[in-house]
């Protein structure tokens, strides 16, 4: 070593110092070498480390530093030039690397720092997410609670159970101290404590509904925190020092069925709410959390729905019970009605027979009485009896008919009949009354009206008679005209008969009859009532009118049965009225047009003809003879006339079924003729029936006729009807001793 000109004296290399240096260098080198090893080891261990290049650099730097220190070890003692060179190289390298590293670090360290900030940021985010997840979890739990509550609530349809369950479950879920439900009273002015959680039987504790706190709760659909001191929350007597927990109240809408619209959800237009009050446990630091409030609101809604379901169920059960009751009642009523109808029918059937039998007896005997010799007063009495009993019989028939008509059990008796004769008969029947009242009745049958028609003759006549009779009845003076014609299709559709749709067809025609009178008329508002049973128009009913008001009702039914229509037109009171009816009649087959070959079917009341019946008429009076002949020809008989007794005896033969003889014929007495006839024809069935025509009504004539064996006596002049009935009787019974 060269000595140096240092200030300090060169002191000999202390062995100790050198030793320490030596050791420190060694350790430094060691450390320097081990650090990169550690780095490498740990970096290799860690998966993520972006700056490997830096590490390499750093490693190199450290290694070189270590190398330098290591090489320093050799410089303590004498060392050779190589060592110096190595040392220098190492130092140079180290310098380079460390400068490079230093430079590199300038870039790297901010990066590393930013990693750190990012890490911080992520941590914050993680914390936040944790928080949110906690929230979500809470919400989910709330939802679960709600579902569970709802399930519990809805699992029953009983109102009380619903409410009780709500309170219980809410209490459990939210760990409430007390939970209460206040329902509005019937008057709607107070809230009554209806259900509580802890208290078993809530006393009928009420608060008025108009409290501000209640209004506040009712005005919003959210759960509202209320003061624990308000009346609805003060359920327990405040005792001691405990701090009451927070109280929340929420409204529960009480929905009615009527609140449900078809297309909308129920608008909360209902005014009725119940109040649910929930109290947290006292002395706890718990507060109402938002999710708990939400839970409460949702539950309140669910309760409302459940209650409405319960209400609907109640209603439907009630309705069903009501229906059942009604069904039973209706059933009973129906059975009673059936029984009543059956009873009535039985009654009618019995009465029909029972009433008619005596009536017939009365009428028959009165008629017979009429035939006997009576003083004028007696005759008057008998006539009155007869008229009254006829009226009564008609009335009975009418009532019985009407009830049969109502039953629908009446059927038309269809047959072919002479239409013209029906009108003439009605005219005949109505003439006496009309002439008494000095009314002029005219009948006008249109030429195209068929003579024969198919229908119910009896009912048609009844209808016609009724209508004409009414016309006569309600006309004090003037005239009555009856017109009949075949209705053509344009006249069928009358504006006044709008529901009437006649359908003309091949075999049918519509008969239209108009009966016009100049009587008292009918006011327009009374017209609909005319056809109602028993309804009599007071202004129309005069002293003279008898009748029960059934007539037109029956007519209407008959006309309806004949597929027709009947109505009355009147221009007003005092302007007369016109009764019009249209009925459907059939057209008889045209094979037998002539009367003579036409066989009638209806006996008694109806057109009867005696086709081909050979009769002989003996009368010296040409006028009477031709009239009688005309009568018999009209009835369809084959008439031969003789004007003297001799001729009669000459002509008479077995073919003649009936002989009409005038008993006041000069020459041979009619009586003798009868005797001769008896002699000529010994056997009864060969002998023609002998009928005397006489103008004498006395008993003597009759006795004489009987004595000589005549079969009947007729008083001249004879009407068509009379002749017809005479012939009928004769042919049926082969004897006739009335017709006077």
């Amino acid at each position, binding site marked *: 070593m060269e000595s140096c000109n240092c200030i300090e004296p060169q002191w000999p290399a202390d062995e100790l110092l050198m030793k320490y240096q030596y050791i420190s260098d060694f350790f430094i080198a060691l450390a320097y070498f081990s650090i990169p090893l550690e780095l490498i080891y740990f970096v290799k261990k860690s998966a993520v480390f972006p700056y490997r290049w830096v590490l390499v650099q750093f490693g190199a730097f450290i290694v070189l530093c270590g190398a330098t220190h290591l090489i320093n070890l050799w410089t303590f003692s004498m060392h050779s030039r190589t060592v110096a060179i190595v040392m220098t190289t190492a130092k140079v390298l180290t310098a380079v690397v460390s400068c490079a590293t230093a430079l590199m670090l300038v870039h790297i360290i901010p990066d590393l720092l930013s990693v750190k900030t990012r890490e911080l940021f992520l941590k914050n985010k993680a914390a936040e997410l944790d928080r949110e997840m906690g929230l979500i979890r809470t919400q989910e739990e709330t939802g679960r609670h709600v579902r569970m509550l709802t399930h519990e609530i809805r699992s029953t349809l009983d109102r009380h159970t619903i409410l009780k369950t709500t309170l219980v479950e809410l209490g459990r879920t939210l760990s409430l101290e007390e939970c209460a439900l206040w329902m509005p009273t019937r008057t709607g002015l107070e809230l009554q404590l209806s259900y509580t959680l802890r208290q078993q039987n809530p006393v009928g504790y009420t608060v008025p509904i108009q409290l501000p706190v209640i209004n506040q709760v009712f005005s919003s659909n959210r759960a509202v925190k209320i003061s624990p001191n308000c009346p609805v929350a003060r359920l327990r007597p405040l005792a001691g020092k405990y701090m009451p927990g927070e109280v929340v109240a929420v409204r529960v809408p009480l929905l009615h069925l009527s609140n449900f619209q078809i297309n909308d959800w129920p608008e909360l237009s209902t005014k009725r709410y119940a109040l649910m009050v929930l109290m947290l446990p006292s002395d706890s630091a718990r507060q109402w959390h938002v999710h708990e409030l939400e839970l409460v609101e949702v539950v309140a809604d669910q309760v409302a729905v459940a209650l409405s379901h319960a209400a609907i169920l109640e209603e439907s059960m009630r309705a069903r019970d009501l229906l059942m009751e009604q069904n039973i009642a209706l059933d009973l009523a129906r059975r009673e009605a059936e029984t009543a109808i059956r009873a009535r029918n039985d009654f009618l059937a019995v009465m029909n027979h029972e009433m008619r039998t005596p009536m017939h007896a009365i009428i028959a005997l009165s008629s017979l009485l009429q035939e006997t010799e009576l003083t004028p007063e007696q005759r008057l009495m008998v006539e009155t009896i007869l008229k009254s009993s006829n009226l009564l019989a008609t009335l009975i028939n009418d009532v019985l008919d009407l009830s049969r008509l109502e039953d629908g059990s009446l059927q038309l008796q269809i047959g072919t009949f002479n239409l013209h004769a029906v009108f003439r008969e009605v005219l005949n029947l109505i003439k006496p009354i009309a*002439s008494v009242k000095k009314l*002029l009745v*005219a009948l006008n049958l249109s030429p195209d009206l068929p003579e024969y028609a198919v229908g119910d003759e009896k009912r048609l006549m009844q209808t016609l008679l009724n209508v004409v009779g009414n016309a006569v009845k309600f006309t004090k003076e003037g005239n009555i005209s009856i017109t009949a014609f075949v209705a053509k299709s344009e006249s069928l559709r009358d504006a006044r008969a709008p529901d009437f749709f006649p359908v003309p067809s091949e075999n049918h025609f519509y008969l239209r009859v108009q009966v016009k009178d100049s009587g008292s008329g009918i006011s327009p508002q009374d017209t609909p009532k005319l056809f109602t049973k028993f309804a009599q128009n007071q202004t129309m009913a005069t002293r003279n009118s008898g009748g029960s008001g059934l007539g037109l009702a029956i007519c209407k039914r008959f006309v309806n049965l004949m597929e027709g229509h009947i109505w009355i037109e009147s221009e007003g009171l005092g302007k007369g009225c016109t009764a019009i009816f249209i009925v459907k009649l059939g057209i008889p087959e045209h094979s037998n047009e002539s009367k003579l070959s036409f066989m009638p079917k209806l006996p008694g009341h109806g057109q009867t003809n005696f086709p081909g019946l050979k009769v002989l008429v003996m009368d010296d*009076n040409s006028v009477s003879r031709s009239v009688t002949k005309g009568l018999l020809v*009209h009835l369809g008989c084959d008439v031969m006339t003789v004007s003297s007794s001799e001729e009669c005896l000459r002509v008479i033969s077995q073919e003649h079924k009936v002989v009409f003889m005038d008993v006041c014929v000069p020459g041979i007495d009619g009586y003798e003729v009868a005797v001769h006839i008896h002699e000529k024809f010994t056997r009864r069935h060969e002998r023609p029936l002998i009928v005397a025509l006489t103008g004498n009504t006395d008993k003597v004539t009759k006795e004489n006729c009987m004595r000589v064996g005549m079969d009947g006596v007729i008083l001249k002049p004879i009407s068509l009807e009379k002749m017809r009935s005479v012939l009928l009787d004769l042919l049926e019974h082969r004897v006739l001793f009335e017709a006077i």
Partner: protein
Amino acid sequence: MDVATLQKQLLDYSNSLFREGFLDKQFNQLQQLQDETNPDFVVEVVNLYFEDSERLLDELAKTLDQQNVDFQKMDAHVHQLKGSSSSVGAQRVQNVCVAFRNCCEERNIEGCLKCLQQVKHQYFLVKNKLETLLKLEKQLVAAGGSIPMYC
């Protein structure tokens, strides 16, 4: 003239006849016997009546003219006349015949003469009326109407 007017005229006339008692319901009977198979029945019968009655009236006049009035024969004639009138419905004539017969029974010539006068009078009256009526009917039928039933 149209059918409606003619018909009304006919109705009025016939109604007046009935009202005044010239005709009774027997005439209606005759009308009823008239139909398509017998279209002129009424006219025929009425004409027959006219013939018969005039003959009878002549006979009656002749009988009363005689010295010895044969009441029986007269009664028979009157009876005939009564019969005819009642068959036709000539009410007034019939009624007078009844009175006539009473006179015959009483053999009262004065009464009979008077009755004969009355009968003649009534007969000619009713003949006139009937002829008018039948003429109106004919007019109506010619115009196309149909004869209504009288009452």
